[in-house]
């Protein structure tokens, strides 16, 4: 496991260390195809528990595609195909016969554009609890909705209008509501696909503070275009380029003294 804020060992050694430590998510030689076009090449990567891992890289480099392989959200796109292994707690999520519905409950996701349902604030957060039948008790349901809204730092803003439509909230509030909705089912891993890219700086700051707070309980993977954001919120950063994983390293090391020349060029703004 990579200690946060510590200089990372060289990649080969680091790879070994990661493999031996308890990785929450372990990806082995993953290739991914949209039809005949290959989008990901031989990705191997370990994601440790209770840390924030950020994916950075230029547009079209495959970081969102990779994120979406972790809860098999790419399955919804016709003609896609994955080879290799993605292990979560040692279980291959691409194994035949795996229950995808169950997987997606364990691996929650927050999207780039906030996507609340056209329902009330309460019903949005309760949705996952209801469909997964996580609770049938009304009081418990209310408690868990409240807990999720508190965890997503939006409770104080919506507690007086839980029955109002979620679509009446501001953009930043809607995104935090979506985070609350994802948290309500208590996923083990939380995937965030550029969660703050459509938000203003103040709303972005709130989301970032929230991520730092949430990592105490969750394993978080975040895709971001904003390198300052990656530096602020993540413990480990992975750099993707043209569908390949170029470097994965402790965030501090990555942004001060990366191992790869390509990483340095990207981070210092020489391309991308």
């Amino acid at each position: 496991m990579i200690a946060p804020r510590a200089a990372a060992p060289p990649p080969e050694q680091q790879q070994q260390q990661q493999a031996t430590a308890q990785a929450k998510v372990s990806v082995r030689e993953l290739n991914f195809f949209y039809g005949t076009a290959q989008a990901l090449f031989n990705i191997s990567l370990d994601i440790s528990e209770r840390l924030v891992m950020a994916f950075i890289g230029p547009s079209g480099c495959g970081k969102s595609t990779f994120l979406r392989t972790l809860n098999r959200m790419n399955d919804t796109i016709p003609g896609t195909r994955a080879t290799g292994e993605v292990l979560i707690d040692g279980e291959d999520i691409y194994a035949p016969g795996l229950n995808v519905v169950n997987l997606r409950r364990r691996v929650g996701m927050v999207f780039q554009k906030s996507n609340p349902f056209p329902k009330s604030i309460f019903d949005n957060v309760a949705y996952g609890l209801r469909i997964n039948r996580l609770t049938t008790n009304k009081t418990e349901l209310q408690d868990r909705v409240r807990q999720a809204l508190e965890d997503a730092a939006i409770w104080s803003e919506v507690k007086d209008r839980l029955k109002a439509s979620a679509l009446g909230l501001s953009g930043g509030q809607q995104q935090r509501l979506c985070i609350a909705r994802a948290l309500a089912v208590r996923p083990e891993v939380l995937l965030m696909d550029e969660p703050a890219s459509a938000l203003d700086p103040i709303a972005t700051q709130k989301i970032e503070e929230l991520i730092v707070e949430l990592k105490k309980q969750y394993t978080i993977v975040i895709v971001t275009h904003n390198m300052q954001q990656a530096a602020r919120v993540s413990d480990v950063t992975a750099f993707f380029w043209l569908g390949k994983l170029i470097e994965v390293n402790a965030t501090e090391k990555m942004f001060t003294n990366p191992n790869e020349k390509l990483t340095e060029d990207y981070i210092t703004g020489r391309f991308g």
Partner: protein
Amino acid sequence: MPTLPTPTSAYGARVRAWDWRRALSPTGNTGDAVFRAALFGCALLVLLLVGAMIAAMASNARLSLREFGFGFLTSSEWNPVSGQFGALPFIYGTIVSSLLALVISVPISLGVAVFLVEQAPRRLSRPITFLVELLAAIPSVVYGLWGIFVLAPLLRQYVEPPLQKWLGWTPFFQGTITGIGLFTGGIILAIMITPIISAVVRDVLAAVPVTQREAALALGATRWETTRVVLANGGPGIAGAIILGLGRAIGETMAVTMVIGNRAQISASLFEPSYTIASVIANEFTEATEAIYLSALVELGLILFLVTFIINAAARLLVWSVTRGTSGTARA
């Protein structure tokens, strides 16, 4: 008495008190003003048309309106020989056949649309969508012919006897089985409006953002649960599609005339012949030689107009009251 100073603009130019361009368009631009006037004219034309139709029908129905008054709506007597006219059997036939069509058609249409949008592979959904739209364009007289020669014998032989056997204890499936009647009329209408409702609902569901489906899937929703989210998103649009189908069913003439039996009576049994407003107008208009007969037929047209209007308004109100709570515009 002092004269008022001539108004001037900020630059000292004289301002004319009234300018047609400024009155029509806030920019005062000639092109914008003409454009706006033209558009307003088009909209006005529609209003005038509706007004003219109501006026013409009311004026031609004057005789009948004066003779029978409100009783026209409640009387079941339709006897051209004795000069007695009542609209109730036709109103009943129109509403029951249309509702029957909706009851059959709506679940099937939703199923077709959901399959095309959510489940079918693209190479299957494209041609089926095309076929559905093609079905919607078939002339109704063709449906009518098919109804007489294929559908009616089929129902008489294979559908109506079992229905009577199992559900004959209810008042709806009693009487002689002929294959011609309200039941067949409702089914032919259902067949005719299913392509329309399916096509519109398909467009509505296809317009639901992918992000809504992903939101549900990411929370561990099954396909069925995801579909329910999509349907909830398309709610107002689906209601609109159903209203459109209902409108077509109420006004449909030829196909229904050919299979409904054309007898002015009110019977609880769906197997009995019935009559719709549109059918009676089409059938009897040419033989209406007396002024009061013609006037009664025109009044039926007026009623058809009103029934359509009321049903549309009620449906809109329903949609509005259901969606009021949930549809706010998203703010970014």
